């Protein structure tokens, strides 16, 4: 087993690595997001008209996964329980999931984001926003282990990252892209319940990154990296993204 400090060092290492990767491919990513415009007439009538055959996330994920798979790192893993991307590197198993949110739901984006059980290992009590326990107590039991092959020679830490994208409803313009590191479950004694916010349904959670934006055991390192921030966005959106903008300004 790793110490808590060693876990944070690994989380920080890969957060930085993926941040630099996304900055490196930023122009290719933005170009990829725009490719939909070339064939807009062929899909526009079927988008967002209630038939729900597709949405922005499908196309955006295709672009990001293609870049990660083409120029990224590690060995993809075929486990059926995991995030959209799951690969093994020398010192970790890494899960990365993409979350897209449109501006109509900007409140779901600014300081916390929905995460699935198959995307993280942070097991803790879910508390109310005032810090009180729910009645009855709600416990969160994610599906990922803190270590894969725990207790064997093959033991490796399990890390969770999220790429979050805010886009404008209607024109689909991208306003913000972030990269988040969600603490590994072993770190629960350090971060407690503050990592989790209650989701819309019982048993569902949101990663409360606004409350745990620092690596607690490392100095001067954030768990959130701002990859792209459109400075020209509507002021009303800018106001809602003040926390994310404050991180961008110091990174």
């Amino acid at each position, binding site marked *: 087993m790793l110490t808590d400090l060693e876990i944070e060092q690994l989380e920080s*290492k890969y957060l*930085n*690595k993926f941040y*630099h*990767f996304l*900055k*490196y491919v*930023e*122009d*290719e990513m933005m170009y990829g997001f725009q490719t939909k415009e070339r064939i807009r007439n062929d899909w526009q009538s079927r988008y967002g008209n209630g038939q729900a055959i597709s949405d922005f996330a499908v196309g955006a994920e295709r672009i990001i996964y293609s870049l990660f798979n083409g*120029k990224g*790192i590690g060995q993809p893993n075929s486990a059926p329980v995991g995030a959209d991307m799951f690969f093994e590197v020398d010192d970790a198993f890494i899960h990365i999931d993409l979350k897209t949110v449109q501006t109509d739901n900007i409140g779901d984006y600014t300081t916390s984001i929905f995460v699935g059980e198959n995307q993280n290992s942070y097991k803790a009590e879910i508390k109310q926003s005032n810090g009180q326990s729910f009645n009855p107590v709600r416990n969160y039991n994610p599906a990922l282990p803190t270590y894969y092959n725990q207790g064997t020679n093959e033991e490796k830490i399990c890390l969770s990252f999220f790429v979050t994208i805010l886009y404008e409803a209607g024109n689909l313009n991208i306003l913000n892209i972030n990269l988040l590191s969600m603490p590994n479950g072993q770190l629960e004694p350090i971060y407690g319940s503050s990592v989790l916010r209650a989701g819309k349904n019982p048993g569902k959670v949101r990663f409360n990154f606004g409350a745990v934006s620092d690596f607690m055991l490392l100095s001067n390192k954030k768990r959130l990296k701002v990859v792209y921030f459109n400075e020209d966005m509507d002021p009303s959106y800018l106001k809602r993204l003040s926390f994310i903008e404050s991180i961008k300004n*110091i*990174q």
Partner: protein
Amino acid sequence: MTLTEIEEIEHKYLNKYFYFFKYVEDEMKHGFKSMYEIKNDWEKYWGSKSSFSTGAERIIYGLLNGKSFGEANSNPVSADLMFEVDDAYIHIDVKTYDHDNINDFAIKHDTNLNQTSYRAEIENRTSKGKRKRKKTLNMHYPHLPTRYTKYENSFKTKKLCLTYFISILTDDTNGDNIIAILLTCVPNGLLRRHYGNRPLVSGKTQFHDTHYFPNGTKYTTSTARYCFADAGKFELLNFEPRRIKVTYSNNDKLKKYNLSIIKNVINEQENRKIF
């Protein structure tokens, strides 16, 4: 294309390569150390047939070819790496320095004739940075064009020629300890209208040739060094961003050396005062 547009493209790819090298930093460092896994097999031959730069270049080229971008070009007159992208041809060369060459590393990096497009008069430069014309006019005429002319399907297009250097400073001759790795963008030759002779200083080789301009003025030619102390910023862009990025630094080691420009770059990149 305006001079500002040229600098915008130079700056775009400087940033792209900077983030690329930050992204692969751990793989690059691991690669540099891989020589020790088979040390017994090469150690007895080292120092005569090869040098640290041979292995270091192999690692960097491997990463650039494997995970980078653009289409490699087979042109025989160019830097070690040459890629074509949508809006440019990009030349990249790796240079290694040990602490004996630290004065060069601090402010000026070697350019070979096949690596840049910046032609200029080479002037004498004092230690205080003042410049003075040489007794006999001395010119640097590199071999790369400022823009390549591409012929494809009977169409002719022009594409900008860009030059980047990756410079590695080590504190011993076997390259065991890397002090810093810099990424620099040498101005495209069209920018001579703005920068004049400032980007270049004398190189290692003075050619023993004599030529005459049409007006009868005599001149010689030489290689050159890119002097980022005198032309180290994109002066036509807002906020004049630097033409140098530090992609890796061992700050404890760096403290011992008089590398003020490089230390300033690190402070700016980190958004805090480290030195």
